[in-house]
């Protein structure tokens, strides 16, 4: 077997060994492929039927020689382009130029180009999975335009060339990043890329939503989007032209793909050593600030946890998500136009509280896992064992409460109704505090020793955390509805409404808090993996 084959074979072996490290039986590789195939089929098959009907209708609506079905395909291609460039580029930079094993691989008699190829393929295998979800769209499109079987094969060959264009651009940008960025800087950059992708997906959903509303809308929206989406310099336009057997499209897709792949392979594979060396070194010399600030020990912990929280992309993403999700919904009118004022005023805070509650558990678990990663260090400090926990619970609760306050303030300015959001935030704070402590317990009880900070809990832990988050959010929302919007409870007797929507949730919250603290008292948060073993 050649060297590239050996490197990829052992990478696959390492992936299939992951369950063994968790103390479970090893899962054969084909089982993973079956699971992934199942996931793909469960999403891909319904998506095919959804798009097949839509495309049949939209293939008849044509504007400037481009049908609405063509436009959908182009939008999907732009989506994949954005996804690969924005998310895979930092992933390639981290995985190719900063992966722990590159240091070791470079010491072996293996060429840089082989290492580069194996690491890029490895990254694309992990990051390229979403690209598969374009397949049902393409098949639905082929069905709608009555494409013969050989053209379907041709379409997928073109799609492979298209994906190579994206991969090559991604690799070249990653090489550029490796020449000036540091490891921590690239990791932090990933949070922004995730957000961009998220906003882009919402934007696409909104675009598709507006096209779906009614025929009048479709034509108006179509005419405004067609010139933007069908721009001649976009690879997605070349792809569409290639599908229509236009030679310029085929030549541009194949030619650009081949040229960029060769350039990327030659340039990036020869630059892996210098890129790697640059990223792991400290960079330019700087003089340190001589102004130190001494705080009280507890405040020092809080300050440290705030810094770690805002610098950890995965936690920051959890924090930003409940804020931007309702704002984007409002911005694109998904709730503003469709629902009544009451449902809009209630639904947006409710959604935000549900997201905040679920993410509070995970965010706390992530912050605790940073502390666990540091190992024995905290235990050597002259502080109480619970100080780090209170600090984390305080920081996470405050952060999520602050996010909700800011989000709801903006929404109140837009819609004018501030009472329900304010009351709901107030009722949420004790719930969030309890949930953040539950997050600590979850990290100990259901740790994911190889998941790192991004996936601190195993599957059971994640599910239990979600259930707890949903319950906590339900309690806070019920109390908020009773205090601020009890007119919608007019169908209930006043006493029953008071008991069901106010007393019962408060009692349940107290029970949840007592149980959480009792559970937490039984475990040593500094030794999560002892329990796992």
């Amino acid at each position: 077997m050649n060297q590239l084959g050996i490197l990829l074979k052992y990478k696959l072996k390492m992936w299939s060994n992951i369950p063994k490290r968790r103390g479970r039986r090893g899962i054969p590789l084909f089982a993973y492929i079956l699971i992934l195939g199942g996931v793909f089929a469960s999403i891909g098959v319904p998506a095919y039927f959804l798009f097949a009907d839509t495309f049949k209708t939209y293939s008849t609506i044509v504007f400037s020689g481009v049908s609405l079905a063509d436009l959908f395909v182009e939008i999907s291609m732009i989506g994949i382009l954005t996804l690969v460039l924005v998310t895979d580029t930092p992933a390639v930079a981290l995985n190719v130029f900063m992966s722990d094993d590159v240091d070791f691989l470079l010491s072996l008699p293996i060429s840089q180009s082989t290492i580069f190829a194996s690491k890029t393929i490895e990254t694309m295998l992990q990051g390229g999975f979403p690209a598969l979800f374009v397949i049902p769209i393409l098949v639905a499109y082929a069905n709608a335009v009555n494409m013969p079987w050989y053209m379907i094969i041709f379409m997928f060959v073109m799609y492979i060339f298209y994906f190579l264009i994206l991969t090559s651009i991604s690799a070249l940008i990653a090489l550029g990043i490796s020449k000036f960025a540091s490891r921590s800087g690239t990791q932090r950059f990933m949070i922004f890329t995730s957000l961009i992708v998220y906003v882009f997906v919402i934007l696409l959903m909104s675009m598709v939503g507006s096209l779906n509303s009614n025929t009048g809308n479709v034509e108006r929206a179509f005419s405004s989007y067609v010139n933007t989406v069908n721009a001649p310099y976009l690879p997605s336009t070349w792809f569409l032209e290639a599908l229509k057997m236009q030679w310029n499209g085929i030549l541009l897709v194949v030619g650009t793909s081949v040229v960029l792949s060769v350039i990327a392979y030659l340039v990036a594979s020869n630059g892996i050593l210098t890129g790697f060396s640059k990223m792991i070194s400290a960079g330019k010399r700087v003089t340190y600030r001589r102004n130190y600030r001494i705080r009280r020990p507890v405040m020092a912990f809080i300050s440290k946890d705030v810094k770690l929280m805002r610098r950890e992309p995965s936690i920051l993403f959890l924090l930003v998500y409940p804020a931007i999700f309702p704002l984007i919904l409002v911005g694109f009118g998904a709730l503003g136009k469709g629902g009544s004022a009451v449902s809009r005023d209630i639904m947006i805070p409710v959604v935000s509280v549900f997201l905040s509650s679920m993410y509070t558990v995970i965010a706390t678990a992530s912050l605790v896992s940073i502390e666990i990663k540091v190992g024995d260090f905290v235990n050597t400090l002259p502080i109480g064992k619970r100080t780090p926990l209170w600090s984390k619970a305080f920081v996470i609760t405050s952060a999520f409460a602050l996010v909700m306050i800011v989000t709801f303030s903006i929404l109140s300015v837009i819609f004018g109704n501030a009472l329900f959001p304010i009351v709901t935030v107030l009722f949420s704070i004790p719930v969030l505090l309890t949930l953040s402590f539950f997050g600590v317990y979850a990290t100990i009880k259901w740790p994911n020793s190889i998941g790192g900070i991004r996936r601190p809990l195993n599957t059971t832990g994640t599910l239990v955390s979600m259930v707890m988050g949903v319950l906590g959010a339900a309690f806070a929302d019920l109390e908020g509805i009773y205090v601020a919007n009890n007119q919608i409870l007019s169908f209930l007797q006043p006493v029953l409404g008071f008991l069901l929507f106010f007393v019962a949730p408060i009692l349940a919250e107290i029970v949840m808090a007592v149980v959480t603290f009792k559970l937490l008292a039984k475990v040593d948060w500094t030794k999560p993996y002892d329990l796992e073993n």
Partner: protein
Amino acid sequence: MTELVKVSNLRKDFGKITAVKSISFKINAGEIYGFLGPNGAGKTTTMRMITGVLVPTSGEVEICDLDLEKYPIKVKAQIGVVPDEPKLYENMTGQEFLEFIGSIFSMDKTEMTHTISELCDAFEVNFLDKFIGDYSHGMKQKLVLTSVLMRKPKVIFLDEATVGLDAKSAKILKMLLRKYADEGSAIFMTTHVLEIAEKMCDRIGIINAGEIIAEGTLTELRNESGKQSLEDIFLNLTGSNEEDVKEIIDNL
């Protein structure tokens, strides 16, 4: 002589495995105590127990006349620990880390700034503004050393502290530890570099299979074993000798 560290009948079981079998030793003020042993002998487990990181199965640890089990926080305020593998907060800068440690130990700001400046000059630390995640092993080691030495703790525990340090920094560390010991600190260090132990340590304890098999000054160990170099003494006590090693080499 003031005994700053007193360890009595310390034992640690991990399930059915006994990692440390009832060991006892003392370290006086002004003394550098070298703790040697082959891999897996129980050095790190012992150090984790006497620094309050690992709860012993039985036995007692007293540091600065304080029972570690009863007064863990008071004890930890008196000690400094340099682990063999520095694991630190990757998303903090070196400066923020020192500020955090200074706050936890309630240090005087002026004194801390002055000491940090001196230690940074000594260890050539010029990367405090960088994130710790971008540090090499040696840089992390220098940061941990700075964070411990800036406090001048009464008792310093070092686990393979010179690993990862350049020759100059290692030399400065050795001289600084001697100076701190001469000023009244007690220093407990583990090392695999027997030359360091030979040159630096006032007393040496050798642990093997969880038991202290020899303890004393270098002269005492020499007299007891009849060997001159610490390497020969160590190999002899831990069940190997020159001939065994030579046979292994010949067979390879």
